[in-house]
């Protein structure tokens, strides 16, 4: 049972075993303490023991209610004790992927980039990222093989999942540096696979997104995500050219034009660290000419990351203070913030929907997937990430030490099996974790240069941020329960 408080001081708890959030006033806590004994006392005995401190009717209520909520276990599935029931046969993996996976093909069309962003995972701040920025470009022969293999799997998978539609993303480096390849790939897919309803995505830094490229991307129905941290000083602090010069002006010149042409269908990805000014960003993203905010992420702090070494204790304290102030401002302004939605509000994105997502992504009642009993990791193959040389990897966030096949031989399902089993062997702290139903961590979080780190080590300190999110969500719920109840708001986060 994990306790947390709303800002108003009300006590709640998360029962991971059962999958319920419950109010947790002192009476229920006292009753639970009595019942935790190996030979739990009868109701009358509990009432007699606690009646000096609490009202009898409350003790009786909570005693009965505790018994009742334990009955949810009868309706749902208990959490597995260990990995022993996992049936990771190659055929199970393949069927699972044909039915549920293959959601996206990501082509890393180049490792080259005209920027040298200070937080980029390819710029030496991440010990376990084995990819450095290079001048390597994908060629069409590799791209074509990857495309053909993806569509062959989709074709094979149609009888398992006829609803899924191909989704192809172009990624880098800066993918527009290999624009000719992107064009060639799209032309090829539109000719060779014209019976499929395809969707194309591009993640770009926006600096070389000129009118010609924009015309072509719009014509081909691309969804475009531009990395844009905030106003000029916020953006240029980290997002710089190789010579150290800021990139903001060049990016803005292209994307404000694109934004007006695409009727705000181009969106922004903003990355923040502890030196950022949340209030400045709040104002910036509320401007109509700025592409709406799609993702707001903190600079990744996975094992092996030394990006944060540059900050002093004072920096962290100052940021904590800023977060505190911003939370208060957000809560005072909550009705306004809800109207603004997450796309034009950094604060709503960060505190509102961010915390609601933590609550709504919990798996209530149901047991986890039989193939992945611990954490939120996928079965590799849910997405296919292809590097410039034609190797398959889990996704763009996972380092490239363990390719899971290549475009010549296809996915190696045996390797996928070994990869998952090795991962599960390292999840040694999971069976006793109190966030099993809410864990969204996956491979990238546990990887080192050669394999996986043990979860018992990596997950130390996981409680604080999770409980902070729960606390914020329940504070919002006390003020406006419909906001938290409306799961549709959270669904939006995953739509794009």
């Amino acid at each position, binding site marked *: 049972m994990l306790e947390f408080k709303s800002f108003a*001081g009300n006590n709640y708890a998360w029962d991971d075993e059962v999958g319920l959030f419950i109010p947790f006033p002192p009476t229920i806590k006292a009753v639970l303490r009595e019942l935790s004994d190996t030979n739990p006392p009868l109701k009358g005995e509990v009432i007699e023991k606690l009646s000096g401190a609490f009202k009898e009717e409350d003790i009786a*209520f909570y005693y009965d209610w505790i018994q009742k909520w334990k009955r*949810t276990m009868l309706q749902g599935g208990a959490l597995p004790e260990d990995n022993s029931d996992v049936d990771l046969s190659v055929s199970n993996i393949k069927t699972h992927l044909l039915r549920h996976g293959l959601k996206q093909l990501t082509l890393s069309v180049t490792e080259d980039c005209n920027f040298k962003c200070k937080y980029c995972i390819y710029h030496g701040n991440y010990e376990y990222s084995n990819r450095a920025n290079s001048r390597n470009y994908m060629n069409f022969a590799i791209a074509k093989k990857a495309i053909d293999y993806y569509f062959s799997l989709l074709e094979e998978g149609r009888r*398992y999942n006829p609803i899924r539609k191909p989704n192809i993303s172009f990624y880098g480096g800066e993918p527009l540096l290999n624009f000719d390849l992107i064009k060639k790939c799209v032309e090829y897919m539109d000719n060779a696979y014209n019976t499929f309803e395809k969707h194309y995505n591009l993640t770009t830094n926006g600096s070389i997104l000129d009118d010609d490229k924009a015309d072509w991307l719009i014509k081909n129905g691309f969804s475009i995500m531009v990395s844009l941290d905030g106003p000029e000083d916020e953006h240029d602090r980290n997002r710089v050219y190789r010579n150290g010069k800021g990139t903001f002006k060049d990016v803005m010149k292209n994307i404000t034009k694109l934004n007006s042409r695409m009727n705000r269908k181009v969106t922004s990805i903003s990355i923040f660290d502890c030196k950022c000014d949340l209030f400045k960003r709040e104002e910036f993203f509320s401007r109509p000419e700025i592409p709406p905010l799609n993702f707001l992420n903190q600079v990744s702090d996975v094992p092996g990351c030394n990006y944060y070494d540059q900050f002093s204790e004072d920096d962290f304290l100052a940021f904590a203070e800023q977060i505190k102030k911003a939370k208060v401002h957000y809560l005072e302004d909550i009705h306004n913030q809800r109207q603004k939605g997450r796309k034009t509000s950094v604060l709503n994105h960060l505190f509102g929907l961010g915390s609601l997502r933590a609550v709504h992504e919990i*798996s*209530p*009642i149901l047991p986890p997937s039989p193939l992945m009993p611990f954490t939120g990791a996928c079965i590799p193959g849910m997405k296919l990430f292809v590097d410039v040389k034609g190797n398959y990897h889990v996704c763009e966030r996972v380092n490239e030490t363990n390719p899971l096949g290549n475009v010549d031989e296809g996915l190696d399902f045996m390797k996928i099996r070994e990869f998952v089993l090795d991962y599960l062997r390292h999840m040694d702290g999971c069976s006793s974790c109190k966030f099993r139903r809410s864990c969204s961590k996956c491979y990238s979080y546990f990887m080192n240069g050669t394999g996986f780190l043990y979860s018992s080590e990596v997950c130390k300190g996981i409680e604080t941020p999770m409980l902070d999110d729960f606390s914020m969500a329940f504070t919002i719920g*006390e003020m406006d329960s419909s906001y938290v109840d409306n*799961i549709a708001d959270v669904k939006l986060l995953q739509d794009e």
Partner: protein
Amino acid sequence: MYFRLNPECYFIQGSKRGAIFDLIDSRIYALSPEETELIESSEKNQPVSGHEEFLHELKKLRLGTFYDNRTYMYKVRVINSSMEEELKFQTNLSRTFLEINNSCQRDCWFCGWHGVSRSMGCMGCNKWNEDGRPLEIGRWKGLVDELRDLDCKDIVITGGDLTLAWDKTMEILDYAKGKFSKIHMVLHQDSLSKSHLDDLDGRARPIIQTENLSNAVAKEGFTPLLAVKPEHYGDIWNFIPENKDALLDFAIKDGQLSNDLPIMSNKKIKMPGIYQFSRHMRYHPCIGGTLAISYTGNVLPCPMMRGHSFGNVGDGELYTIFEKGLDEINKFWKLTLDKIDKCRCCEFRYSCTDCRALDESLTGRLEGKKVCSYDPEEGAWA
């Protein structure tokens, strides 16, 4: 002071009254208009005086309690936001009727051949007057594989008198073995012999169509389905011997419905568990996730809805029906009671049973409703 229902208790509001659904203990509490008003207010975190006798009653029932401050109650859910998202990318096919035969030598009064409106005709035996080339056994086996690949959970083997095509039925049952969670099979009681019963052991769970429960085959796993004539509506309970469970299949004549029929009265409301309640918020309580494949390969929303077809699988594969007609399929599957004329303002809409085939046949509208004697506007049963 505030009063909140527990996380497992949902308050659903109707036009005039509301109801509390306890999803752990599967109980429904129908509220008066005054009680509804009080719970509506308290569930919106409005303060209460603490002297309301009704709220103390609810506390004694362990449905909710008083709090000193505004309290947020995160209601119990079955699926999370990611799973909700995942549902969009899956077929979510849960049950398919396979009409592998259409021959029968009887002429039962309730048969689909005569176009009789029935409350559980889908689970009973029927033959149909339908043109087209019957599917070959090889195609039925192919469909079994296609259904398994589409992750269909249960199948129901049906069609005419299956004992007239027994070898074919057994061959298909053997082929389907182990590929689904449940396999049901519809048979008429009068066709069954001991050797048929022996053959079924371990292969399928039979649903036995009958007009006389006292002669019904009694065996564990066997479900009798009693066809009830309108003239027996009044003494229906005399037809059901003690200690015998049966599905009741009411034939409706000339649209005449008696208000005390179980399908009209509050007996139609089922005590909700967490899963059913959650599912009924997304899908129709009966045809949601269901398909029927007629003996000529037409794919229907249910065996009794012969006027709607999503396509034919005589030559093409079943998955192509989803590729071409997902929106049309979802028009039926996602027809929750929130979208049915009279039900949308009823507080029992997530725990009620509903036969779309029957209501459509009686009202002429897919969203019509006649089979219910509750008036949610008045909050009263007729």
